């Protein structure tokens, strides 16, 4: 069929092409594919599909190197979410997705719609969402703007998930000036399904109707996809009208209706209209099925008058789904949606002819040859070169950093670290998230990994997100290895066996050699760690161009890990619980101090090499801990991370604020190490365990070649954290540590709480 330009559409000029973010080379490729000049509509479609967000043009070659298989992986990368089997014919679908750019412009709606999108990615697989997590990065809370972004994102995430009724059980929040102009907002969703109910977004069956489901289409977020592929600048403010507004109420109806549709057997495929809306959902489904499709934009239910095909195809209006139904089942599909007060409109069909065709009534406004629209997208492997400035920082001799005189009392230093917003309790955040709805959250936010029980079985899943961007900044490969290894330790500390990961690569502009270097090295490190720990990658998301006038963010490859807890009896928590228990340290203390929160928070220094992460040791400590837990020898387990051993021990005695304990610690065996490295260094693969049976724990550790030692005892009524190193010893009242740790963020937000709340009043739900 012949494609005719719509009257009123702008002419294709170099300026228009540039505006659509296409390079001349990419435009030529398009012309070659079409063998003619594209229409305005076609230009819009391609600019969206070939945007970084949809096409992965700078990351796909790297992602191919990730391990993606295991006997229990039912669905790897390439679908809306990854899926792994967890036994009894059950499976979990999970995926993480970024909404950094929208959240930088409008924190509340940006973060809220991020949650909406990831929920849809999971329930379109036929899975019922059972848990949400989120991984957040902001600048320093000293800035009012940052406090606004922080409060707004948290409220947006909470209001959306709370309203849909999915518990938000975990996540992480890190504050660092590196994220000042460009916050990171990654949302992860985990869903439960029966293996045989697994649904894939693959269009098939010539003559099958394509149905638009859910909310009507407005002019929201047009070009959101290409927006997410540009640096943030003052110019972004001009793009504000692109902001999408979320409606969690409609999402809840859509969730129920979609699951009912999938189980009804009336449909063959379903996909969220996410980034690049109708365009990418229809093109991706067609490509996966290697079939042709035709879409009539006049049939798309519109929210506004006179919307053009261009707008209807590229709108990112939320809470919409694209469904391929079985021919002749249109009425049944409509009936299910009506039950949930949702609309369904047949807008096209699957055709034999291998084309992607868009018509407006009887005018063809866009037509591409088959799946080449998706497959012909260029990929790039730009130059990679490490920044010499970072090399210099990494080489710095951090032991030479002079101590502040207050540090003569390490307990003072400890209190400072506990007040660092990155280390301090995030209760201010997760108290705004409903984490008990669906009555399956056994271990909620605040500990190592969250644990959600699987009803009708004795099993549970352990969930966590992790990444230390400072490590990745100072050494991308090591930093990415650490992110995976730390996630695995967190899972193990809750009693779970690490199974698989999803990941969100948040990086700067890949066209800059030093950024592409970070991306390449981080993916390589992630692959090494996933191989060593036996946790394949089942999916993820790439967010590039995370830059602002103040520069690029720390390279932040967020790891979302799922673990399997074999028995409820294995579920383990971080806080010390029983008086007299022995405290055993698994792993070895070292003199490493580089890249630590200590250097950053107390000395304002971002330098030194991050701690080494031996992947054999990482695997061994996880295996040893899991065996010790299965033997019933472990009462509590807590990973050593930011702030090192001292912070980990402090957390064990006061993390559970209603049940403060105390401890007597003796580290004399390491008296030869620099004291601040011993207490606050962040040596990897260490776990603090409390146990009534230290001999058993140590014997198990030995079997796995894991160094271990009794370093003290739980003193439930002591009310002090006492630390001895050789002749020297110190003590701090636990209530003081608790106050520092639990009140730090509330005190900061108090200053501006009212401003935040009123700025958001209109957005409040519930």
């Amino acid at each position, binding site marked *: 069929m012949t494609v005719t330009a719509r009257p009123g559409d702008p002419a294709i000029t170099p300026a228009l092409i540039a505006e659509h973010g296409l390079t001349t080379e990419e435009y030529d490729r398009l012309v070659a594919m079409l063998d003619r000049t594209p229409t305005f509509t076609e230009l819009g479609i391609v600019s969206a599909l070939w945007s970084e967000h949809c096409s992965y043009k700078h990351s796909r070659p790297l992602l191919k190197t990730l391990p993606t298989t295991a006997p229990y992986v039912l669905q790897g990368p390439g679908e809306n979410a990854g899926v792994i089997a967890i036994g009894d014919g059950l499976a979990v679908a999970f995926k993480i997705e970024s909404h950094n750019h929208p959240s930088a412009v409008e924190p509340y709606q940006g973060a809220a719609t991020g949650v909406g999108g990831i929920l849809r990615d999971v329930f379109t697989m036929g899975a019922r969402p059972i848990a949400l997590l989120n991984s957040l990065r902001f600048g320093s809370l000293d800035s009012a703007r940052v406090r606004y972004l922080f409060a707004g994102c948290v409220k947006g995430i909470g209001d959306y998930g709370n309203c849909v009724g999915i518990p938000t059980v975990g996540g992480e929040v890190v504050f660092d000036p590196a994220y000042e102009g460009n916050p990171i907002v990654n949302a992860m969703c985990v869903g439960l399904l029966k293996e045989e109910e697994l649904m894939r977004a693959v269009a098939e069956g010539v003559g099958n109707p394509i149905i638009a489901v859910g909310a009507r289409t407005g002019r929201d977020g047009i070009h959101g996809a290409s927006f997410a592929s540009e640096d943030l600048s003052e110019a972004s403010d001009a793009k504000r009208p692109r902001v999408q507004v979320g409606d969690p109420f409609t999402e809840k109806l859509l969730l129920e209706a979609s699951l009912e549709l999938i189980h009804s057997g009336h449909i063959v495929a379903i996909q969220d209209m996410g980034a690049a809306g109708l365009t990418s959902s229809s093109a991706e489904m067609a490509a996966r099925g290697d079939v042709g499709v035709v879409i009539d934009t006049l049939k798309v239910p519109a929210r506004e008058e006179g919307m053009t095909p261009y707008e209807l195809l590229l709108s990112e209006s939320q809470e919409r789904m694209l469904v391929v139904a079985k021919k002749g089942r249109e009425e049944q599909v409509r009936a299910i949606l009506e039950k949930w007060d949702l609309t369904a409109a047949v807008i096209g069909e699957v055709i034999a002819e291998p084309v992607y065709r868009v018509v407006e009534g009887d005018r063809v406004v866009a037509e591409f040859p088959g799946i080449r629209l998706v497959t012909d997208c260029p990929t790039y492997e730009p130059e990679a070169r490490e920044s010499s400035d970072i090399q210099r920082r990494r080489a710095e001799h951090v032991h030479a950093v002079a101590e502040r005189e207050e540090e003569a009392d390490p307990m003072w230093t400890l209190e400072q670290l506990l007040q660092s917003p990155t280390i301090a309790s995030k209760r201010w955040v997760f108290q705004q998230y409903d984490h008990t709805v669906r009555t399956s959250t056994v271990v909620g936010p605040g500990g190592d990994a969250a644990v959600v029980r699987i009803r009708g079985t004795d099993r549970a899943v352990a969930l966590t997100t992790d990444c230390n961007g400072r490590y990745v900044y100072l050494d991308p490969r090591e930093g990415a290895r650490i992110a995976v290894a730390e996630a695995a330790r967190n899972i193990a500390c809750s009693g779970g066996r690490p199974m698989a990961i999803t990941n969100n690569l948040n990086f700067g502009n890949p066209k800059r050699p030093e950024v592409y270097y970070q991306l390449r090295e981080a993916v390589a490190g992630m692959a090494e760690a996933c191989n060593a720990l036996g946790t394949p990658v089942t999916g993820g998301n790439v967010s590039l161009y995370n830059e602002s006038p103040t520069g690029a963010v720390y390279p932040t490859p967020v790891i979302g890990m799922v673990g399997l807890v074999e028995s409820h009896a294995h579920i383990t928590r971080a806080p010390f619980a029983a008086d007299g228990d022995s405290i055993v340290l698994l792993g070895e203390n070292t003199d490493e101090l580089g890249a630590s929160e200590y250097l950053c928070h107390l000395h304002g220094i971002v330098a030194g090499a991050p701690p080494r992460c031996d992947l054999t040791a990482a695997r061994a400590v996880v295996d040893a801990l899991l065996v010790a837990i299965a033997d019933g020898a472990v009462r509590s387990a807590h990973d050593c991370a930011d702030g090192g051993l001292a912070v980990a021990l402090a957390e064990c005695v006061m993390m559970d604020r209603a049940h403060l304990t105390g401890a007597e610690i003796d580290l004399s065996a390491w008296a030869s190490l620099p004291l601040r490295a011993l207490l606050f260094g962040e040596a990897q693969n260490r776990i603090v365990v409390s146990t009534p049976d230290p001999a058993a724990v140590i014997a198990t550790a030995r079997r796995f070649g894991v160094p271990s030692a009794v370093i003290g005892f739980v003193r439930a009524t002591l009310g002090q954290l006492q630390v001895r190193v050789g002749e020297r010893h110190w003590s701090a009242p636990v209530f003081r540590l608790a106050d520092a740790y639990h009140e730090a963020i509330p005190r900061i937000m108090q*200053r*501006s*709480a*009212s*401003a935040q*709340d*009123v*700025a958001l*009043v209109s957005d409040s739900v519930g």
Partner: protein
Amino acid sequence: MSVFRVAVHVVPRRGLLDPQGKAVADALHTLGFAGIHSVHVGRHLVLEVDARDESEARTQTDRMCAQLLANPVTEDFEIASVSRQ
């Protein structure tokens, strides 16, 4: 029949704690706005309704407020304006 644009104010009953109003006032102070005595936050609804004339539009809207738009226990409402479109 013609279309009327009706604006309605729904405000928290006097005497009831108005945390939003207080939060706004505090925030304005923090932002350095001096001389603010009080702030009250209510709801502002704009409806486009068919009616024969203005008075019908009013009575219509009155009934909507009584039935749904305002909570008789905690809120008062007033029709702020009615204009033919």
